[in-house]
């Protein structure tokens, strides 16, 4: 192994604030995230304390997004008072581990609204076409 393992080699202070967040791995045009715990004031490019899971935002061939969570370690770090970043909180909410994050509801509502609007626009366009014809 030439690169340090992503599963965590970062040094940390016991009493410093920790944060569970998504850390982008992958490469250009191919996002892939590690769910990791780091010190809160540390850059995402620096070694993390521990990797707690992974999240693949690109749907696979079966139209599924895969999330892996090490629930035992997540519980441990939450018990230590780690802060959870909103995207991770959303994922944990969807998994049923947390209550659903408000932002998830907002996104769902906005998506429904835009869909509705698009549908309405389409209908209008069809009507105007018919009228023109």
């Amino acid at each position, binding site marked *: 192994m030439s690169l340090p393992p992503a599963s965590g080699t970062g040094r940390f202070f016991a009493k410093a604030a920790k944060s569970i967040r998504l850390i982008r791995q992958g490469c250009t045009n191919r996002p892939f995230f590690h769910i990791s715990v780091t010190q809160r004031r540390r850059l995402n490019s620096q070694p993390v304390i521990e990797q707690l*899971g992974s999240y693949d935002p690109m*749907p696979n061939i*079966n*139209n*599924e*997004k*895969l*999330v*892996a*969570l*090490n*629930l*035992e*370690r997540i519980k441990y770090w939450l018990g230590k008072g780690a802060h959870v970043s909103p995207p991770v909180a959303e*994922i944990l909410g*969807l*998994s*049923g581990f947390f209550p*659903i994050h408000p932002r*998830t*509801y907002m*996104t*769902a*509502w906005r*998506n*429904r609204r835009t*869909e509705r609007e698009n549908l309405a626009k389409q209908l209008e366009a069809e009507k105007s076409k018919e009228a023109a014809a």
Partner: protein
Amino acid sequence: MTLLFSKIAQNNIKTVITRNNDLQILTISYRKLSIVPSLYDGKEDPAPKFFSSNVQVLLKRLTRPDFNKVFRKRTNSGLAVLRTPKYKFLTNEELEAEILKANKKADVLLQMPPVVKVHQPVDDVLSKDPALVGYDSAKYLFTDITFGIANERRLIVERDPDGTLRHCGHDVRKRLNQTYFPIPGRKIKEPMMFTNEDRFNSLLDRQEYEFLLDRACLQYEPDEASYQRITSITYQHIDMNKSYDLLRSTRHFGPMTFYLTWHQSMDSLMLELLQSGAVREGVLLAALRQALLGDVANGDNAQALAQQILPTPIQLAKPERLTEEDIQLDNKCVECIEEYIVSNSAMKSQQELALQGFREHYQQLIELSRGLKKAHGNA
């Protein structure tokens, strides 16, 4: 009964094939008709019977383990080049200890793949949240990768686009387990040899049964429908060709015998045992049937006889000399099998013929060994 019918049908169709030129369609239908896969999906669960120590012992004995075959040279032992053999000087006691160790290793090598009922589909909704509709068009699959949890008990849930949170089905669970905790040799996509019918049939025709069953054990879980489908077809193919010897001394002989007995089609196996002169194993087979189905006439007698047979050494070849105890035991076995043939057998005439042949051969053997004993004296 379905099996019997299918065999008759197969013969008929073979004659049809010779007349018709349209071979391909017919051969496919012939294959479909000849072997009908049958799963353990009835009301009764085979697992408790299979795992009961009584049946396990019978199945292991019926495997007739020959150490030359159990420890044969394997190409799949994971070595790129052959290693240099190692030598040791051993005293008698050490040698016995080593042989005991080897016996234990043989037990591991001969451990039978479990026979269980097909699993039930999972339908376990955890929560429904209609407010989440429209959040994403893709499913979310969540896997708990906590260290030290068995694959079967791992928490794997999915969030559907309509906001339902539910436990995943068996297929998805298997896929995700293989993604995060890969079993070496198992493929996420099913191998062609199982999905492609032509390739599967060509393997069967080449009698690569052990390879097929080994690979199936690796690729599937024992409670999967596809595993049971593949193994049942293979077992029936073996039964049709009477090539039981290919599976002897391997871990698959037990499940095959169990399968044949469970479906009451072990008569050609019985015939093979009688023809090869293994009457003791014939009694064991009858006892197995009694243990599984309980429909053998005078079955308790067979089971009691089986308890007498089990302590005797395994007969890998036909015996050349007989002691008086052997003769007594074998005579009892012959009587027991006679009863079985009369009451339960579906191939009565053939089996009786084979038994008669055995009796004649055995009579000669008795005379020979008694004469020898007389000549040598009692010493």
